[in-house]
Every structure is written in structure tokens, then in C-alpha cells.
């Protein structure tokens, strides 16, 4: 078989179907992963002792165990206690938990880096702690967390391939199916790799644009470089 025919007529159409699933996994996971990260970081940093401990434990559990294990539990384990999730839903939940836990660490680091005076000034104006966090602390922290968060988002793009292990035929899975059917491994997985590379490159460019748009004089990378 002609290589071009294989790549353009067989491989790419199959990969596009997988890519759609991969994109769906990311689009459903990332926003909630970010929200969870903000919630867990805030709870850990500003919550009472119980909430703070709970957030810390959650992060420890997620960081300390393989994501694959989590997916297996969600998909194969939960039915035994009466909760049956589709493979796609189980994947998304697993990714949200994982993404959220790691995001929370980046955000927590950024929260700590915001100077105490910001909270003091906000409270002196009559803001509650919650108002101060929402309006003053978090907007600054999120700007500083962008490099870390974008890193985590890129990880998400790549570990979304783990969904294949619980039967979701996403990008990698689609590639694997084609490869085993036609016994063409190297070319197939190289093309799959290129698709991931394109996704990550788009993300990197988008993050750079975002970072510039939300940059604030005195708080951004560029002005630090000028010092």
C-alpha cells in the first residue's frame, strides 16, 4: 500500500475522530479543573483547620497515586457500589480531580506570593476576607500562576490519552487501533505524536497571548526582565 494513501485516506480520518474525543475530554475537564484548583487552593490557604486539612489530604491522595489507578477505580470499581459511569464521564471526572489537585498547588504558591498588605488594605476598606480574596488576592495570584497552570494544561492534553485504558477511543487509542489493524506502528505513532505537538504548540502560543493581555505593569515577566 502506498504510504500517502495510508496516511491520508486511512490514518488521518481515524485520528480526526479520535482528536474530537480528545478535545472533548479537554474541554470538559479543564474549566472544572481550574475551578477545583482555585477552590482547593483557597480552602487550603484561607479555610479553617478542617477545610484546610481536607484540601491538603485531597491533594496528597491525588499526587501520591497514579492517575490510571484513579480511572480504574472510577470506571471499574464504582459499579460495585452501584455507581456506573460511562467511560467518557469517568475519564472526565478523573482528569478534573487530577488537574484540580495540581492546579491548586500552583495557585497556592501564587496566593502565598501576594503581599500581606494587599489583604490588610482590602480589609481596612471594609471588605470581608472573602471579598478581599475574590477581588484583590485571587486576580493577582492567578496572573502569577499562569505559567504553572499552562504547564498543567499541557499535561492534561497528554494524559488525556490514559482514557484509552478505560476504553475511550481518543487520539492515541484511534492511532493504536489503526496501527494494530495495518501493522504500521512507527509511522502511525509519529503522526499521532505530531498531532499532540500541534495541540501543545497552539496552547503555548495562546498562553503567551493571554499572559500579555492580562499583564500589569510591575507584575509581569517583561517588566521584571527590564530591571
Amino acid at each position, binding site marked *: 500500500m502506498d504510504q500517502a494513501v495510508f496516511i491520508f485516506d486511512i490514518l488521518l480520518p481515524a485520528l480526526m475522530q479520535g482528536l474530537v474525543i480528545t478535545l472533548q475530554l479537554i474541554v470538559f475537564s479543564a474549566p472544572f479543573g481550574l475551578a477545583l484548583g482555585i477552590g482547593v487552593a483557597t480552602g487550603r490557604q484561607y479555610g479553617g483547620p478542617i477545610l484546610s486539612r481536607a484540601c491538603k489530604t485531597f491533594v496528597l491522595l491525588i499526587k501520591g497515586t497514579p492517575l490510571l489507578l484513579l480511572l480504574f477505580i472510577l470506571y471499574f470499581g464504582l459499579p460495585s457500589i452501584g455507581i456506573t459511569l460511562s467511560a467518557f464521564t469517568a475519564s472526565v471526572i478523573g482528569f478534573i480531580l487530577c488537574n484540580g489537585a495540581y492546579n491548586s498547588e500552583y495557585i497556592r504558591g501564587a496566593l502565598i506570593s501576594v503581599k500581606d498588605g494587599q489583604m490588610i488594605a482590602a480589609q*481596612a476598606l471594609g471588605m470581608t476576607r472573602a471579598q478581599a480574596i475574590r477581588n484583590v488576592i485571587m486576580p493577582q495570584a492567578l496572573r502569577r500562576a499562569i505559567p504553572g497552570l499552562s504547564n498543567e494544561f499541557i499535561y492534561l492534553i497528554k494524559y488525556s490519552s490514559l482514557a484509552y485504558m478505560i476504553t475511550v477511543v481518543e487520539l492515541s487509542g484511534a492511532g493504536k487501533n489503526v496501527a494494530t489493524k495495518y501493522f504500521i506502528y512507527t509511522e502511525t505513532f509519529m503522526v499521532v505524536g505530531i498531532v499532540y505537538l500541534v495541540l501543545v504548540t497552539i496552547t503555548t502560543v495562546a498562553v503567551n497571548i493571554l499572559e500579555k493581555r492580562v499583564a500589569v505593569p510591575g507584575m509581569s515577566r517583561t517588566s521584571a526582565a527590564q530591571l
Partner: protein
Amino acid sequence: MDRNDIVLRVEDIHKSFGDKEVLRGISFEVRRGETKVFIGPSGTGKSTLLRCINQLTIPDRGSVWLDGEEVTNSGARINYFRQKIGMVFQNYYLFDHLTAFKNVELALLRVRGMSKAEACEKALTELRQVGLEDWADHYPAELSGGQAQRVSIARALAMDPDVILFDEPTSALDPELTREVLEVMKRLAQQGMTMLVVTHEMGFARSVATEILFMENGVVAEQGTPDRLMHDPRFTRMKNFIGQFDSYWGD
């Protein structure tokens, strides 16, 4: 306006940090329109005292009253009192991610619940008051220290406070910037704003203070009008502290 109207009353404030008793029973009253200036050696609790007044630091003992209502032990109502008790800090503490205009506007929107149009007008008015309406769209990092401090004064003023606490507002500024901030404060005093000022600026204390309170070792050691502290022979400690008194006071 009733000049005898007592707006702020501080009673027997005590505060310790660990073994160190920083405030050892401070009491005073502030009438509407008065400027009280606190001077004294570093580490005698002047800043802590200001922070106890708006409960950023919780005193161990004693009470604070604003217009006859208790500020201490006021629970969630403290956020109402903090609107009424403005505060200006040595290091400005402007919100770094917001322009000068938004620094002033933020609490108007989020705390006082003003409409966008109302808050915008109020914020611009206050920036004009401190001479910075042309700098409204600049970020804190783009402002000089004097400008930043004036923005923070505008931010405090915007809440229509009954009293403003100034915690060494010019200690981080060079003489020229100090002057521009003191000019704004002097004008506020003349307009009848009630102010408590911790400062080392003796010229300001002399010309603006209704009363000077000299603090040492957690108590008010000497207290009186600038003239009285200077000329009454019973007062010696503050004169010693200032040392080069005559150059400030003239004779």
C-alpha cells in the same frame, strides 16, 4: 458643625505580642474635625494603636467607640466601621493589579454597592481632590511614591469616612514627595476631616495638629497642644526626643 462632638473614643487599650506588652492602657477622645498627631520612638506601639482602632489588630483589653457605637466586639459589623474609619499605610498598599482609578473605585462597587456610574464619578472626584485625575489610568508600579500615597488617600476618602488613620504616611518618601503628601493632608485637615496621624514630621505636627500625643513604652507620656508641649516647662520628654526642636519650632 458641633466642634465638641466626640467622634472617636479609645478606652484603656492594651495589647501584647508574646511577652512584650506593646500598649499599656491608652485612652483618648477625638472630636470631629480634630487632627491628633502621635509621635514617639520607634516600637512604642503607635502603629499597633492605629490598627487596634479599626481592629486589624485585636486589642487584648479596652474598647473603641465610633459615634457612640462600640467598634470592638462588633462581630461582622466591623466591616461597616472599617468603611467609616479610613486608613492610609506607610507603604501605600495599593492594589497592584488595578489602575489608580480602579483602586479607588473597587470598594465603592463591592463594599458600598454603588452603581458603576456613581462609583466612577465618585472615584474621579476623589482623584481630583488629591490632584491625580490625569493619572487615573496608571498602575501603582507607574506612580511615584508620593502619587501612590495620594491615590491611597483618595481610596480612603472615597468611603466618606468619619475619621482617617495615617500610619507614617510619609516615612517611605523623600523630602519632596513628603511635601506633596503633607500638602494634601493639610488641606484635608483644613476642610474639617478628622485625622489621627502617626508621623515623625514635626513641621506638620506643629502646624496642623490640634493635639500632639507623645507615646513611649506603650503609654501616652505627654499630651497637649503643640504650643503647650513646647512651652510648658513641665513637659520635657518630648522636647528631648525631638532634640533639634528649635529648628522646627523657630523661636
